[in-house]
């Protein structure tokens, strides 16, 4: 394995909401490119990994270094209420939005009352 793949991975800052029959995950992944992003579902595991490409500085010395040279990786366990075939993802400005749709059978249903 090359040095880059051995880089440490941390989990990205994440917001999780539920809205209109969808679970929305928002992850902060600055420096990750679209090519470096990998989202996969295997059984009950949703794994999200992002490889960062930080602007390299060729020759120079760091006076301040706060940005950590890590990649992003995390795993979520998703249960059976989530439709595996309806997972959407969008990436913009270093923010990843993943929406997991609930199965139709799990959504709240309105029951109409028939009356005379």
């Amino acid at each position, binding site marked *: 394995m090359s040095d880059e793949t051995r880089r440490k991975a941390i989990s990205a800052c*994440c*917001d999780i909401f*539920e809205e209109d029959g969808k679970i929305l995950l928002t992850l902060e*992944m600055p420096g990750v*490119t679209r090519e470096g992003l990998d989202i996969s579902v295997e059984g009950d595991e949703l794994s999200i990994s992002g490889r960062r490409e930080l602007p390299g*500085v060729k020759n*120079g010395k760091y006076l301040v*270094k706060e940005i950590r040279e890590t990649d992003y990786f995390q795993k979520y366990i998703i249960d059976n209420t989530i439709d595996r075939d309806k997972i959407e993802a969008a990436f913009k*400005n270093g*923010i990843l939005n993943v929406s997991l749709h609930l199965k139709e059978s799990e959504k709240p249903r309105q029951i109409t009352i028939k009356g005379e």
Partner: protein
Amino acid sequence: MDLIRWRKPELSDPWYEFKRLQNEINDLFNLDRSPATEGLFDRPFSPAVDLVEGPEDYTVVCEIPGVDKKDLELSLTSNVLTIKGEKKQEEETKRKDVYRREMWKGSFQRTISLPGGVDNQKNIEANLKDGILTVVIPKREETKPRQITVKAR
């Protein structure tokens, strides 16, 4: 003589992780040697910043995921660079069921005092890509390192 296979120190040294931790803790107290990166009006939530001094210029790298170009304001006054911006909250009112919230939102400001010798006249390049802002500030001619050729007689 035996040939010993070279291995990465972190693989063979069981104390590597502890040493790294120790270095990181030591770095916490070394703040006085680095330039000031916080101003009076900075807010507690501030994006992470790298400052690199190269032979020709200073490079400032800043992590600002989710900030649009139009919400970002950069200014340079003599040698103080200010990064100001706002991370917009999106449709927060609609969302009721929150499971987890780790991201911070709102406006932020970061003030970085660069070491002297900044060229204010020259073009300053700023680039925002995938949530990473890179600003390249050229140095003044007289502060750049000069090559001196030695003549032999």
